[in-house]
């Protein structure tokens, strides 16, 4: 198994943190993982993206020819990365910000009403946690406990956010599993 997930959005949406949570969770579960973030002046432009690769075998390249999953947090990110998704891949959309769908017909699309779900979980600030929960559940990347563990490892020392974030992750899981 080798899964590449591209996360993309604008600065402040916690895009890199999503990738970091997934990477930590996967590592703790014993998988191999690479996390490659955008950096430097690219960030000043206000966009942020990262690619996370998970595998049960040794990972050769941390950059892939294609992504199996694209997590698009805003419109421009969808436009930019849509063409890089593999045939039959999954595009997960932040429905609260993206009002149009991908043009591609050969991929699966999963829209998540992030802001609403995050509010239900306790705060809009947990939107990225809802998203990572939803993505992991949708494609069985990691079980809920491992995502939560990954979050705790990724945010070591910031314990005061653990409760809210855990609720966010749970909310994402429930949405992906029940559609509600």
């Amino acid at each position, binding site marked *: 198994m080798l899964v590449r997930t591209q996360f993309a959005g604008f600065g402040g949406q916690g895009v890199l943190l999503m990738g970091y949570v997934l990477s930590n969770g996967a590592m703790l579960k014993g998988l191999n993982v690479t996390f490659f973030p955008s950096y*430097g*002046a690219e960030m*000043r*432009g206000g966009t942020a993206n990262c690619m996370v690769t998970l595998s049960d075998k040794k990972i050769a390249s941390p950059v892939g020819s294609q992504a199996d999953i694209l997590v698009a947090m805003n419109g421009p990110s969808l436009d930019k990365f849509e063409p890089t998704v593999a045939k039959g891949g999954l595009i997960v959309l932040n429905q609260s910000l993206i009002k149009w769908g991908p043009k591609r017909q050969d991929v699966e699309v999963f829209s998540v009403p992030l802001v609403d779900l995050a509010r239900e979980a306790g705060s809009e600030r947990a939107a990225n946690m809802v998203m990572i929960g939803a993505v992991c559940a949708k494609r069985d990347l990691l079980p809920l406990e491992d995502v939560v563990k990954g979050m705790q490892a990724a945010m070591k020392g910031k314990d005061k956010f653990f409760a809210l974030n855990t609720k966010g992750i749970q909310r994402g899981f429930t949405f992906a599993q029940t559609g509600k």
Partner: protein
Amino acid sequence: MSAPAAEKIFGRPESLKDVATHYCPGCGHSVAHRLVAECLDEMGLREKTIGVPPVGCAVLAYNYFNFDMVEAPHGRALAVATGIKRVRPDSFVLTYQGDGDLAAIGTAETIHAANRGELISCIFINNAIYGMTGGQMAPTTIIGEVTTTTPGGREAKAHGSPIDISRMLAVCEGAVYIERCTLNSFKGIKQAKKAIRKCFQVQVDGLGFGLVELLSPCPTNMKMSPKQAWQWIDNQMMKTYPLGLIKDTTGYEDK
């Protein structure tokens, strides 16, 4: 055409290209660019000007300024400018440099250009931090200021004290005009423009090296709102870098 032509009171100076810059909201670079451009326009210097941008957030200044410019390696702007001015003494030569560029890696070039009295105008943007590389300590970072390489705040013993390069340059015989202004208020900006004009006049009159230091907000790396960053300059930065004339041997009346 019977209607009288409207008098244009505000618009884009010709010395600035009609493009959007990449500077963050509230950044001092945008204001400084405008002031430089206005002064060049008003003094009719644009077509004679050859500029040297820094390596720093203003590295792309050649995309914004509407006159000839050549890139220099990090810190070497005044050496490059010296070469230009010596070959083309009739051109108007200016450098535009950040604090890292001018007062860290380029210190030697800066001191020696000033000391030689090169007929160059230097615009020095002091934002007390490394903007482009993401908020490391600058030579001008003030005591206590938290940066990514002084996570516990700058301490004199471990990191050195903030360098007041403008006052150091004042010792150089060849430097004839040095003034420190600020970009964090309307009043400050007005004074800054006056200083830049005067600095340019020094070169036009062939008197020597001129430099205007501009205290400039970098809200992004200070992790502040633009307003907080402006206040920080008033409340903190100016204690280390008081505004005002630092050196003037021009003999101009307007002192």
